[in-house]
């Protein structure tokens, strides 16, 4: 018997003010998907980072634009996507610098994508600049 897929979608204005609401949404979905608190914390942070990037970089803080978070889970996998219709970028060109290097350069940014990749089991960008950019993230649901 195939498990039913459950789908949750959230649309919010592209503003950092929306981040707390996004985190609550993700936390609740993670709980419904039976993730444990540690995994939920990782999911919450990864999606926050992904959405903060959209708000800042894809839309340049234009609150009339919309960020979409889409979550689908069955009993094995939670897939969560962050979707925008903004600028887009080349994710292969964004080299990760070490924290030591960022500290030396007195940077306040540059940690987001690395965090996302560390926190999630699979991460994949699907970019069509100005049309539809999607960041797909996957977390396995480990059964006790």
């Amino acid at each position: 018997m195939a498990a039913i897929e459950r789908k949750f979608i959230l649309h919010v204005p592209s503003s950092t003010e929306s981040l707390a609401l996004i985190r609550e949404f993700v936390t609740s979905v993670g709980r419904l998907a039976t993730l444990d608190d540690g995994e939920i914390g990782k999911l919450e942070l990864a999606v926050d980072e992904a959405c903060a990037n959209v708000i800042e970089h894809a839309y340049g803080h234009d609150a009339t634009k919309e960020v979409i978070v889409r979550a689908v889970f069955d009993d094995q996998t939670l897939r969560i996507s962050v979707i925008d219709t903004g600028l887009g970028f080349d994710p292969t060109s964004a080299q990760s610098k070490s924290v030591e290097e960022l500290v030396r350069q007195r940077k306040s940014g540059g940690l987001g994508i690395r965090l996302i990749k560390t926190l999630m089991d699979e991460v994949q960008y699907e970019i069509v600049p100005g049309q539809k950019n999607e960041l797909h993230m996957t977390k396995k649901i480990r059964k006790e």
Partner: protein
Amino acid sequence: MANPFAIHTSSENGLSIISLDGFVDAHTAPQFENAIQSEIDAGRNRILVNCEKLNYISSAGLGVFMSFIEEVREQGGDIKICGLVPKVKHTFEILGFQDIFDMLDDQPSAIERFAAS
């Protein structure tokens, strides 16, 4: 939202103590940045960030620690961190912040550490 944000600055034993309450994300990080900047502008570079009531931090908040530490250490000061709850501590540790920052269990131990340096 469940965790509104508040920030409180005080001084004790010649240290500036910045206490964070709630969440530091891309929305609230600028307030945290301003709080540290104000201390530095006033010539106070021995800064303890008390995180006992901090229940969430994203890279926007971690970036604030990262961007000031060199400047403060050049001036002979430091930014130390105390009171991290396990969930938040985990976020710092994923990125290896424990190799760069002193992270103490509570405010008294942090004050002692400053005194010893």
